[in-house]
C-alpha cells in the first residue's frame, strides 16, 4: 500500500509542472552558473556572510544585543533553508524511484521500495559529505547554544564564500586538476619533514647541547626552515644540525619552486576555459545577440558596424591571431571551432541568439557551420558568405537564409560605377545611410491611422518622404500592377493613388532619418491611441 502510494506520488511529481517549475527556479537560483538569478543570489549571500562575520567579530567580549541575536537567527535560518534546498536539488528522488519501479515492471520482478530508499539516502549522504556541504553545515552548527564550543567554526562562514565567488571556485578547481602533482609534492614534503625532524633531534637534542627539546620542537623547526621562514627561536648549535638546516633550506626552495610552477601551469591551462566560461556567462545575461563566426576581413567590418549600432554580438574564431585582434577591440570572443554543436549551444544559439553570420574565408567551413546552426535551431536567421559561386546553392541547401558573395557584390559595384556613376552613388548613399538619407520599411500596424487608408490620402510629399513601394502578403492587393513576387510576399512598386493599405503591409519609404522616425512615431501613437497595442 505504502509502495503504491510512493510510486503514485513519484508519478505525480514527474508530471506536475508546478513542481518542475519550482525545481527549475531553485536550480537557477542556487546552481545554474549562467543564471542571472544566481548572480543576484550570490551577491546577496556574500553580503550576508560578510555582515554576519563582522557582527561576530564586533561582539567579541560583549553581550550580544537583541537585534544582533535576531539577525543571527535570520541568517542561520537562511543558511538552513539554503542547505536543505541544495540537498533537494542534488538528486531527483522521484526519478530514482520511478526508474527502479519501471525496471522492475519491465523485467517482471517485485519492486522493493526499501532498495530505492537506500539509493536515495546514499545519494543524499553523498551530498552531505561533499566539501561545500560540509562547509555549509559547519557554518550553521556553531549557532546552537548547545554547541557553543564550536564557535571557532564560525570562521567556516568565510569558507562559504567559496560557493559564491567564481574566482575562489576556479582556484579550488585548479588545485583539484593538479591533484596528482600535489600529492607527489605532499609525499616529498612529508618525507623531507620527517627526515629533517629526526636528524635535527638527533643532532640538537639537549644532551648534545642543542635547543630542540622534543620531537614536536623538531617538527616545528623543520617546517619553519623548510618553508624558508626561519623565525630563529630555535637555531642549530652543532655542525651536524647546521648541515641539516642548510640541506633543508635548499630542498625547501626546490619544493616551493615546484609548488609555484604547478599552480602557474594549472592556471595557464585553465585560463582558456575560464575566459570562455566568462563569455558564456556574459552572453547568458543578454536578451538578444548575434553570433559572428569568423573574424576575418568581412567579420571585422560587420563587428564594427554592429558596435556602432550598439547591437550585442559575440565572435567565434578558431584562429588565435583573429581572437587576439577581436579581444583587443574589446569584443566578446570565444576561441573555439564554431562548427561544434557544443560551442554553438553554449554560446546560446537556442538562448538569445537571433542570427548566425558565417564569415570564414573557407566555404567548406561556412557550409558546415550553417548546417550545424540550422540543425540546432530551425528558426534562427543564418547569413552565410560564399567565396565561390558554385557553393551558393550548397549554402542554401545547408539552411542559410541569405548567401552573400563578396566578389559578386563588388562586381556589381564596379559595373554600376563604370556604367552609371551617379546612380551608383545614389545606391551607395542609400545603403550606407550617408547624409542621413535612408530607406526604411515601416509597418502598417493594425489599428494605426494607416490601416484602410489610400495612398493618395497620406500625402508623402508633405511629410518630405518618397514612397517607393509596398511589401505585402495580403492577397487583396494582387489586382494592382507593378507587382514583383518575393518569396512569400509581393513588392508593389510605385503603388497607385487608390492602393488601400492593410494591416501588416510594409511601406518602403525614402527620406531623411528624422522625417522617417517622426512618421514611425505617428504610426505607433495612433496605434496606441486606438487601444491597439496589439
Amino acid at each position: 500500500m505504502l509502495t503504491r502510494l510512493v510510486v503514485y506520488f513519484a508519478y505525480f511529481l514527474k508530471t506536475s509542472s508546478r513542481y518542475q517549475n519550482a525545481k527549475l527556479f531553485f536550480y537557477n537560483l542556487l546552481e545554474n552558473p549562467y543564471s542571472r538569478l544566481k548572480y543576484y543570489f550570490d551577491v546577496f549571500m556574500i553580503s550576508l556572510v560578510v555582515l554576519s562575520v563582522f557582527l561576530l567579530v564586533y561582539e567579541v567580549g560583549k553581550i550580544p544585543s537583541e537585534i544582533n541575536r535576531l539577525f543571527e537567527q535570520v541568517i542561520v535560518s537562511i543558511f538552513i533553508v539554503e542547505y536543505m534546498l541544495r540537498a533537494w536539488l542534488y538528486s531527483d528522488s522521484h526519478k530514482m524511484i520511478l526508474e527502479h519501479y519501471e525496471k522492475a515492471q519491465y523485467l517482471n520482478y517485485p519492486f522493493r521500495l526499501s532498495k530505492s530508499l537506500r539509493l536515495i539516502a546514499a545519494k543524499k549522504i553523498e551530498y552531505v559529505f561533499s566539501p561545500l556541504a560540509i562547509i555549509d553545515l559547519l557554518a550553521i552548527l556553531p549557532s546552537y547554544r548547545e554547541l557553543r564550543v564550536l564557535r571557532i567554526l564560525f570562521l567556516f562562514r568565510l569558507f562559504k564564500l567559496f560557493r559564491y565567488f567564481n574566482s575562489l571556485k576556479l582556484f579550488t578547481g585548479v588545485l583539484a586538476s593538479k591533484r596528482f602533482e600535489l600529492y607527489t609534492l605532499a609525499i616529498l614534503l612529508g618525507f623531507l619533514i620527517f627526515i629533517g625532524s629526526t636528524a635535527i633531534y638527533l643532532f640538537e637534542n639537549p644532551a648534545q647541547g642543542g635547543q630542540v627539546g622534543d620531537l614536536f620542537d623538531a617538527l616545528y623547526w623543520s617546517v619553519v626552515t623548510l618553508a624558508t621562514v626561519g623565525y630563529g627561536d630555535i637555531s642549530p648549535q652543532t655542525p651536524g644540525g647546521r648541515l641539516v638546516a642548510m640541506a633543508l633550506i635548499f630542498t625547501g626552495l626546490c619544493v616551493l619552486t615546484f609548488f609555484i610552477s604547478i599552480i602557474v601551469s594549472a592556471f595557464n591551462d585553465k585560463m582558456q576555459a575560464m575566459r570562455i566560461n566568462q563569455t558564456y556567462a556574459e552572453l547568458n545575461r543578454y536578451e538578444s545577440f548575434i553570433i559572428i563566426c569568423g573574424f576575418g576581413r568581412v567579420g571585422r567590418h560587420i563587428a564594427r558596424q554592429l558596435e556602432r549600432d550598439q547591437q550585442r554580438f559575440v565572435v567565434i574564431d578558431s584562429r588565435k591571431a583573429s581572437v587576439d585582434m577581436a579581444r583587443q577591440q574589446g569584443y566578446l570572443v570565444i576561441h573555439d571551432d564554431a562548427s561544434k554543436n557544443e560551442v554553438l549551444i553554449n554560446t546560446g544559439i537556442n538562448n538569445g541568439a537571433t542570427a548566425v553570420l558565417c564569415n570564414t574565408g573557407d566555404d567548406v567551413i561556412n557550409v558546415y557551420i550553417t548546417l550545424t546552426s540550422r540543425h540546432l535551431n530551425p528558426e534562427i536567421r543564418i547569413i552565410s558568405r560564399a567565396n565561390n559561386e558554385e557553393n551558393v546553392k550548397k549554402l542554401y541547401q545547408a539552411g542559410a537564409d541569405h548567401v552573400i558573395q563578396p566578389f559578386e557584390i563588388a562586381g556589381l559595384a564596379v559595373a554600376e560605377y563604370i556604367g552609371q556613376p551617379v546612380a551608383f552613388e545614389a545606391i551607395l548613399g542609400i545603403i550606407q545611410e550617408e547624409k542621413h538619407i535612408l530607406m526604411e520599411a515601416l509597418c502598417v500596424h493594425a489599428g494605426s491611422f494607416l490601416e484602410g487608408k489610400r495612398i493618395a490620402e497620406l500625402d508623402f510629399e508633405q511629410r518630405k518622404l518618397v514612397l517607393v513601394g509596398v511589401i505585402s502578403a495580403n492577397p487583396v492587393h494582387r489586382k494592382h500592377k507593378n507587382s514583383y513576387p518575393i518569396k512569400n510576399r509581393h513588392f508593389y512598386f510605385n503603388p497607385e493613388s487608390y492602393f488601400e493599405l492593410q494591416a501588416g503591409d510594409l511601406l518602403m519609404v525614402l527620406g531623411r532619418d528624422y522625417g522617417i522616425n517622426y512618421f514611425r512615431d505617428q504610426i505607433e501613437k495612433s496605434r496606441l491611441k486606438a487601444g491597439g497595442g496589439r
Partner: protein
Amino acid sequence: MKRIAVFGHSSMSLQVMNRLNPELYSMIYIGTNELDADLVAEAGFEAAVIDFRNDDALRSIGIGDDVEILFCFFAKDSDNVFLTISARSIDKDLTIIAIVDDPDSAAKLMAAGANKIIDPYEICGRRTHQLLIKPDLTTILDETVFGRHDLHIAQIEIPEGSWLDQRKASTLKLNEKHNLILIGVVDKELSEDLQFVIGEKEHTLDAGDVLVVLGPAREIRLFKEEVENV
C-alpha cells in the same frame, strides 16, 4: 565603344564583365596564367596572358592607346599597386579601378594613381549588416534592383534643348506620368554632388543636370528616349 582591360582574379573579372553591356564596352581579360585566360575565354570574352610587370606588354594590349578603363583585380595588393603605377605612368587619363585586400592598402593604391578603390570585403560586411538590421528592405533591393526582376536605378542626363530644361523637379510627377520614382538630382547650379529629392528643396533642371530614377527597365528606356528626343 569604350575599351576596358581587366587584370587579375578570374571570378571577380567575370562578375564585372558579365554585368557590363557588350554593346557599350569592348573588354579584354588579361590573366597571369593560361588556365584563367581559358576560363574567361570560355565565357565568350577576349582573353590573353601577358606579364603585367612589363610596360611594353601593357602597351601591346592597348594601354596608352585605346584602353580607357583599367580594372586591377589581383588578389595581392602589391600587384595591384604595381599595375596601377605602371598604367598611370603610361596613360595619365586612364580610369583605374582597383580592388583592395587589406584596407590599409587603399591609400597606397590612391597614391599610385587609382581613381576608385573597391573593397569587396567591406561591401560584403555592409551587405550582411544591412540584411541584419533591415532585412525587408535589403531583400527587396536584392530581388528587384540588384536581382532578377527588372527594377533598376538609372541615371539620365538632360541634353541641351530637352523639354526638361528649366522645368522644376517637383512638377515632373514621374511616379504618376512615367511609373518612375525620382530618387535624386545632380543640380549643377548647386554642386556636382547627388541631391536626394525628398521634397526638401526645389531644383530647377538645366541641361547637363542628371536625374537618378528608379523603375522598370521599359519605363526607364521610354523616359530616356523622351528626354533625349530634342
